[in-house]
């Protein structure tokens, strides 16, 4: 049984909001004190808001824990408390081991100093001592691919070089526990790949990582367990697949709810086949012989009509798309249907987009509601890192040839 390295017990954090939120002045303080001396004794009646509400969690040694949730849900506040940047209002936590936190890229860089000097400076701010940095220095420089420019002041660096160096320093931190806020989304793709690889390497070395990201792809790849933080409280604390599915469902239905007052959809869509076998409204429970129907209104004559239909997953990645050209459309209601003999997509939430063009002239384009929910049985590999792109049903037969 692995040891618990982070144990948090009912952590709460209250922030004050009010008229003096950003700026206190001595003058104001003094005038208030003179005008009503009694008000100093009373508790100030600032409006408060709880960024975190009784969050309890345990992280075991060697675990990679993902934190997900919408903006302002309290993920960063939680990281800030665990990395001791700010203190909780109530509750407590115990952290065993050296903590390295990476809430921003390039913390402590100074433009006047050379890459070499900044490496040492930034490393020391992140908690390494001089000897450790010196030992890792060559590795850091090689990782950032900056051998030639290491003695140039960083103010002459391109932004890409700057980010690479900053990342390289952070990636070579060797804490027992690494707290990472959404910083991995910087740098070019090649370098990001390198960083994610480095992170997994770190976790394989038995170190613990708590990782905040809005990119479910990254979370899937790195984490085995996910905590979903919502309105300052833990909403789910479970295996990655389940937590992400629950989160994506909630996000999608939240989107639909918030879109009620919006302009009418460009197109309506429905599942017309199979009639009863598995289809319920926008929910699809079958792999094959599916037919979707799209209906839309055309207002004027369209000579060289083009229709684009795109299916995206909840991360916005296009799963499938089609375009039909040279359509002659007259004003009025139109509909088309797309019959698909086989629909092997992963279970989850999807969105249809529909576009109407005249030649290359854009007429109407937009997302269709509601979302498409695919609830077919899963034929995926049970481990998340082997999750593929298709959900292909199969039969497995073992034969012994004698």
């Amino acid at each position: 049984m692995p040891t618990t390295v982070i144990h948090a017990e009912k952590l709460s954090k209250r922030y004050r909001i009010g008229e003096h939120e950003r700026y206190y002045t001595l003058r104001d303080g003094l005038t208030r004190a003179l005008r009503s001396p009694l008000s100093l004794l009373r508790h100030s009646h600032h409006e408060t808001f709880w960024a975190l509400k009784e969050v309890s969690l345990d992280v075991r040694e060697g675990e990679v824990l993902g934190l997900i949730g919408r903006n302002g849900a309290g993920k960063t506040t939680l990281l800030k408390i665990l990395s001791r940047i700010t203190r909780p209002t109530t509750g407590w936590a115990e952290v065993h081991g050296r903590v390295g936190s990476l809430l921003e890229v390039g913390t402590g860089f100074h433009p006047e100093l050379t890459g070499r000097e900044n490496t040492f400076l930034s490393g020391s701010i992140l908690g390494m001592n001089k000897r450790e940095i010196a030992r890792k220095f060559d590795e850091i420089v090689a990782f950032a691919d900056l051998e030639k420019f290491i003695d140039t002041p960083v103010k002459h660096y391109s932004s890409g070089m700057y980010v690479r160096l900053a990342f390289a320093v952070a990636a070579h931190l060797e804490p027992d526990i690494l707290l990472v806020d959404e910083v991995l989304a910087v740098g070019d793709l090649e370098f990001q790949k390198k960083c994610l690889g480095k992170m997994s390497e770190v976790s394989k070395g038995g170190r613990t990582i708590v990782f905040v990201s809005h990119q479910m792809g990254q979370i899937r790849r790195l984490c085995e367990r996910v905590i979903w933080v919502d309105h300052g409280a833990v909403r789910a604390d479970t295996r990655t697949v389940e937590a992400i599915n629950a989160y994506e469902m909630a996000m999608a239905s939240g989107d639909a709810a918030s879109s009620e007052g919006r302009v009418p959809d460009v197109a309506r869509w429905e599942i017309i086949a199979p009639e009863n076998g598995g289809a319920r409204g926008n929910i699809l429970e079958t792999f094959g012989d599916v037919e979707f129907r799209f209906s839309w209104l055309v207002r004027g004559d369209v000579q060289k009509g083009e229709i684009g239909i795109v299916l995206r997953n909840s991360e916005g990645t296009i799963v499938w798309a089609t375009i039909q050209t040279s359509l002659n459309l007259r004003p009025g209601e139109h509909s088309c249907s797309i019959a698909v003999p086989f629909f092997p997509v992963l279970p989850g939430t999807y969105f249809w987009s529909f576009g109407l063009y005249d030649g290359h002239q854009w007429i109407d384009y937009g997302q269709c509601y509601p979302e498409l929910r695919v609830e077919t049985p899963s034929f995926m590999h049970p481990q998340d890192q082997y999750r593929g792109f298709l959900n292909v049903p199969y039969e497995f037969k073992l034969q012994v040839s004698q």
Partner: protein
Amino acid sequence: MDKSLLRWHLPAAHISGTLIRSLLYTVGVFSIPMSSVTHPNAAFPLRSCTIRIEPPRGLFELCFGEVWAYASFFVLSSGATVKIRYKQSAIGVLWVFLQPVLTMFVFALFFGRLAKLPSDGLPYPVFYFAALIPRTYFSCSHSSTTNVVVDNQRLITKVYFPRLILPISTALLGLVDFSIGFVVLSIFCVVYGILPTLAAFWLPVLLLALFTALGVGLWMSALNALYRDVRYVIPFVIQFWMFASPVAYASSLVPARWLYGFNPMAGVIDGFRWAITGHGQPPGLILLASFAAVVLVLLGGLVFFNRMETSIADRV
């Protein structure tokens, strides 16, 4: 010491903001081969340090051990600060002694030659310069410590380190300028034929200067973090304080001398002058009074700074 002390600019952090957005969608499609993400059984030796995170409580939660643990950061950042300060302007180093030397000439001319204030039998240049060195140290370190917390707000909100490092490092960094001034003063002394006496054993009085600068700096940096208009008051206070200290005149002019010592700067300046030249009255009670005052200011400053520290990341 200029205001840019210990202030790190992070222009690329702004640039990276747009990068983050544009890359948000692309990273999701990465495929990185990864056989196994974690090894639950990997025997990684747990380091013995355990940190307990709790709501702030009590008046006094000092952890000098922690400050010590961040010695590398302190040394490297101080080194960088000094380097930047003197690299940026050719006049940088020159200014360190030009400022007190010029002030000294003005003082020697007006207070000495024209007003004929007593100087305890010392030549005016030495008399004034010996006071101006600690006084310049105070005024510089105070004005830079005032802003040190606010100027480092980026750092404070993004990474943990014992905040106490900030005022401590500014107070210590001022000693660099101080030593340069000290060398110049020694030259003056030699020129005027004033050689070290047994009084030089009083030189450790300089520690008092360091603690005074630190104690007052703690108050000012914390106050300035809480109330942003404090920085406009500080220059006036520093000016006022100089005239309340025996810079332009000898402390022998002051009637209740030991009471005067409760101004810690008085004790430091008097003691320093005595230690360097051996002229004037040996500092006795005045130093004791200053010492008491410094202890009070320093302890109060630590408590106040500590109170502020717990909420600083939420405020700045």
